[in-house]
């Protein structure tokens, strides 16, 4: 169906829908209890139409992009006509309910214009704890989804305006952090309700309702995506990423992406990707789609809308039983980080081949554990060591961010203040400083990553989920170098080294952990980098004098901290002629 909406009204409605989604996010941030929402913004608010098409997701973390449609489709499948005013739905299961992984719960509020269902206002949010084999939702030892927490099919959490107290008690019993989950669920429902109210106001002001407006919004996005595709050369572009382990054994596991671009269509084919694995790095289908969408939208830039219209031109083929479309009961909880990171890299690097002027280098893969313990009231606390986040890759327009939130949030996750963590957790942070030579070299340098040094003052459990410690992961492109890989060092109270698994849980007493986080990749030939910028990096201690000479072909006099121009010119001329 082609929309008949006039271009002016379309513009007005598009803005209004985005505003509503952001308003929902605003309510969520300010009312939720878990740091994972109100500090890390690990949630997204979205509006879907009555068929489950995503209409607006102006607020939310990139790795949720476009995936919400699966959840709404599952509700429609389960409940059909049994969807009424006053119902509120809840779900999380990736195999039966369109979820991406179990910690992300979706609350969906059906919106009615008169008696007609027109939309769902939804909130997908990562809960602090949902049971399972490890506190904090990540169980690196899981081999089945049953080890990962409570599975929720589409259910009515609220029926006819009344909370289902039986169900609510069941949920609260299945978390280690009911004190957080209760407030968080109420915040999610509150945010969906605000969205529904605002959508109804918009609908009332719109002659003929919102249906044709939704079509118009999607049509515009489709045109925009197709316009971008038309300006790329037809052809096939491939990239292969990999894991070095399946969470249990060291072995190479491949994620292969081939982009086939023809006219205004793009096919994303995962053929060649390895079969599903034992550990929890399998990607649910919803997550695979989201990672592809996030990769494509972030490659082309901020103006591309993120609704179902954008994705009409994109076809995704993920072989059943593979890592990116596993059969149950494969565990999947890690997927929003790994292999989402790998999938986004594949999309970026394949598109970089198609459109090198938009080149994006890789971001270092995070390599820190989730730490948990008990407070004096015996309540579980869960601390993400975000202060050990990696460096970002460079682009054509900037160097890599030196330290930034994960790629799957496009850096939207806010890194905590060390002081704040010292107030709320039994820790003392000793260091969080940029690494020297951590960033990949390049005309645009990769982000450095940091040296992080933390002391845990009580007994803790560490849940390791590292991907960046075995080889460089911040991949450089178009002549840029790779960022350095991570190093990790864990010592008990006696100063003795404790073995750190790539994946797995470690329980220990007071301890000290040092992590050097991976750097991001560079873009372009480092010998083309502005020598003054190289000098600045040397003075700042971010690039060593040796690396300046070897990688960047800039000779810096160590005593005067000035560029030795004659030597630099001669080095750089030689580099050009090679």
């Amino acid at each position: 169906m082609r929309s008949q909406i006039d271009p002016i009204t379309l513009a007005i409605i598009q803005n209004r829908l985005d505003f509503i989604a952001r308003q929902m996010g605003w309510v969520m941030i300010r009312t939720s209890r878990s740091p994972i929402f109100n500090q890390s913004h690990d949630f997204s608010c979205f509006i879907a139409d009555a068929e489950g098409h995503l209409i607006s997701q102006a607020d939310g973390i990139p790795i949720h992009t476009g995936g919400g449609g699966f959840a709404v489709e599952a509700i429609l499948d389960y409940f059909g006509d049994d969807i009424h005013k006053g119902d509120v739905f809840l779900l999380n299961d990736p195999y039966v309910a369109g979820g991406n992984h179990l910690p992300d719960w979706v609350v969906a509020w059906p919106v009615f214009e008169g008696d007609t269902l027109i939309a769902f206002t939804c909130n997908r949010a990562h809960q602090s704890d949902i049971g399972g084999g490890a506190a904090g939702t990540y169980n690196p030892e899981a081999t089945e989804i049953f080890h990962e927490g409570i599975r929720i099919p589409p259910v009515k959490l609220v029926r006819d305006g009344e909370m289902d107290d039986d169900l609510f008690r069941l949920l609260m019993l299945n978390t280690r952090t009911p004190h957080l989950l209760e407030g968080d669920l109420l915040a999610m429902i509150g945010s969906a309700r605000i969205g529904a109210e605002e959508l109804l106001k918009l609908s009332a002001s719109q002659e003929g309702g919102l249906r044709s407006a939704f079509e118009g919004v999607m049509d515009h996005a489709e045109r925009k995506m197709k316009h971008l595709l038309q300006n790329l050369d037809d052809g096939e572009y491939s990239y292969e990423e990999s894991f070095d382990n399946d969470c249990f054994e060291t072995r190479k596991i491949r994620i292969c992406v081939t982009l086939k671009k023809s006219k205004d269509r793009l096919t994303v084919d995962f053929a060649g990707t390895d079969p599903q694995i034992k550990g929890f790095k399998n990607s649910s289908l919803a997550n695979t789609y989201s990672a592809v969408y996030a990769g494509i939208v972030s490659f082309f830039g901020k103006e591309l809308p993120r609704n179902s219209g954008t994705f009409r031109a994109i076809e995704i083929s993920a072989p059943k039983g593979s890592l990116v479309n596993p059969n149950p009961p494969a565990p999947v909880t890690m997927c929003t980080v790994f292999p989402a990171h790998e999938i986004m890299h594949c999309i970026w690097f394949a598109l970089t081949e198609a459109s090198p002027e938009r080149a994006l280098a890789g971001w270092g893969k995070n390599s820190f554990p989730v730490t948990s313990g008990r407070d004096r009231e015996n309540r579980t606390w869960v601390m993400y060591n975000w202060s050990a986040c990696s460096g970002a890759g460079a682009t054509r327009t900037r160097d890599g961010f030196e330290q930034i939130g994960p790629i799957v949030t496009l850096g939207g996750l806010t890194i905590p203040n060390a002081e704040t963590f010292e107030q709320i957790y039994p820790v003392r942070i000793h260091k969080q400083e940029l690494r020297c030579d951590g960033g990949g070299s390049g005309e645009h340098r990769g982000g450095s990553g940091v040296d992080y040094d933390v002391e845990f003052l009580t007994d803790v459990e560490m849940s390791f989920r590292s991907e960046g410690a075995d080889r460089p992961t911040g991949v450089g492109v178009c002549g840029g170098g790779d960022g350095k890989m991570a190093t990790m060092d864990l010592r008990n109270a006696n100063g003795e080294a404790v073995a750190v698994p790539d994946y797995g849980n470690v329980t220990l007493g007071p301890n000290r952990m040092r992590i050097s986080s991976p750097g991001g990749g560079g873009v372009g030939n480092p010998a083309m980098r502005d020598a003054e910028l190289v000098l600045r990096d040397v003075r700042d201690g971010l690039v060593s004098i040796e690396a300046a000479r070897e990688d960047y072909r800039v000779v810096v006099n160590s005593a005067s901290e000035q560029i030795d121009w004659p030597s630099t010119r001669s080095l750089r001329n030689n580099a050009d002629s090679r």
Partner: protein
Amino acid sequence: MANRREVGDSTEGLRIGVDVGGTFTDMVVASPNGSIDVFKVPSTPSKPDDAVMAAVEKAAEEFGMRQDAFLRSVSHFIHGTTIATNTALEGKGARVGLIVTDGFRDFLEIRRGIRENPWDHHAPFAPVLVPRYLRLPVKGRLDAQGSELQPLSVEDVAEAVRTFREEDVESFAICLMNAFLDGTHEREIAAELESEFPENYVTLSSKAAPILGEYERGSTAVMNSYVGPRTINYLRALETRLAQAGLASPLLLVQNNGGITSVEEVADRAVNLMLSGPAAAIGSLNHFAESIGKNSLISMEIGGTSCDVMLMNEGHVNYTDRLQIAGYDIVSPSVEVHTIGAGGGTIARVDEAGLLLLGPEGAGARPGPACYGFGGEHPTVTDAHAVLGRFVSGPYADGAITIDASRAHDAIDAHIASRLGVSVEEAAIGILRLMDQQLVLAVQKLSTERGNDPKLFDLVAGGGAGPLHVVNVARNLGCQRVYVPRISGAFCALGMLGSNCRHDNMRFFRGILGEVSPDDLVDGLLDLRMEVIDKLLREGFKEDEAIVQFTMDLRYVGQQWDIPVPVDLPIEHDRVRSTFETMHEKLFGHVQTRGAIEVKALRSSATGLMEKLMQPRGAQTAATPEPGETRRIWVDQKSGWMDVACYSGATLASGHAFEGPALIEEQTTTLLVGDGDHVTVDNAGNYLIMMADNDNA
């Protein structure tokens, strides 16, 4: 500060407000007899004091006085300055050296990874204000309770001093871990720096922003030292120049908190001037609340590039202390101003998929809108007004601008209409609908999202472009009345004259409501009180004249956002809890009965009231005003094109009343009134509009 009681006879006691903008410097002169005059001169960005002096000269001439005599008769000379903000925007601040705790050299550059729009990841951060080689670590550490784990290393401090000397550092900032709990180490370092560099600016994070969070605290300290020297040098130079020209009273400044203070008091807190201009809107709202007879008001000040919205609820304006300016995070007590990039010069365009977009890019003062003929090619909001008959070809703003409507027509045709396949008029209407939508959403951000129903507020227009939008925005929001000051073009300069003296301070606190002893809370609040009262005393107020307000920042345990809850002494936990719950309910629609409430910070403010501005009283007239001409104008979505009576503001006087549609052209602004709306010129000579459609019941 000049005693506010010195306002004397008719030749004495002039009050002057000066607002330096990007294009114009506005001066408002209020005489003791209630008359208010506005003078506009072109700004001189490289030397802003030149424009201030030019405005003084122009005003003196108008008053028929010599400049020295004119200045001598001024009791209050109040200045809103953009110099601190511009210094940051233009990267023209001092060469700053930063001292940090060993191990934390980089929080300033990491910035917690905060970027406004994660999807916009191709854009770099704003340049870091202190390069890494001037961010120097010193050993010495406090734990999370503020106890010393490791003494301060004097050797490290000496080493840093040596480096700063070699590198010709101009000013200094200090931000040590957990210094919000105890500033002793920071003070020791400051003493060392001050003895080594007695002339240079030093900012302590524990003094500038004693909050939890090394990044925000440190960023504030650095910004203060970055903009401080240039800002204070400018202010001292201006003060000297004014004194030499005859001004006998000290130069006064508007701070981010909307309160005025002297150069001396703000000298070590330049960061408190980052919002110096827009914050003055609170003074305008104070002033107009009297003539309107209502103190629940929303102001919408629209200039060439942006719109500033402020909300006053029953006389109270929200305060915040988190600001982001020019891409830098700053903590400073501030009136809440919501700014969006939507002004007369905001550019409209069509994307490659046929969607009409407005802003945030603007055409600035130069080249400006296409219809100004300064070479601007892109269609702007002002061009849309010209196409729709709200502006006609000819001179505006005393001839500073000449509008050519055909250029507006051509620009909208080429860039918008032909691409959308609609007429030029339809395209122009689209631009204005998008503009008004952005304005509506900006107002809702401060009203609806804070639990305030905009229908219960009157909308007040400010800025040159505000009066063209305010009526339609009010209609969309359901407001019943709109107020348009005749001098809305000098909204903030006027506001400076309606401002009071105000000082704020705060301290970190840790405890659970009901568990902490009320005495600890009271002691903390009284300490804070003493500090702000001292400032007021130094400014010539008596202790019993100070209005003190105490606030506690509260949240449910686990939340990350505080609600600032006003409290009275003595502290009664039940009463505090009930105030908190009422506010939480209003903001978020629910409360958690029996939920534990954390106290995160204590705050105090002290206000010294300035004498109110006289409300001007124009001669009353009962006559019906005659419009100058009737013009074909597109009024709004509902009425479309109409024959609209156009009035020259100069012909309208207090007591005049008439029905819309109407267009009123003032010297610095143009007001558009919708069909059936009722306009009265009030006693103060300003326009009060009763909205036709919005239910007045």
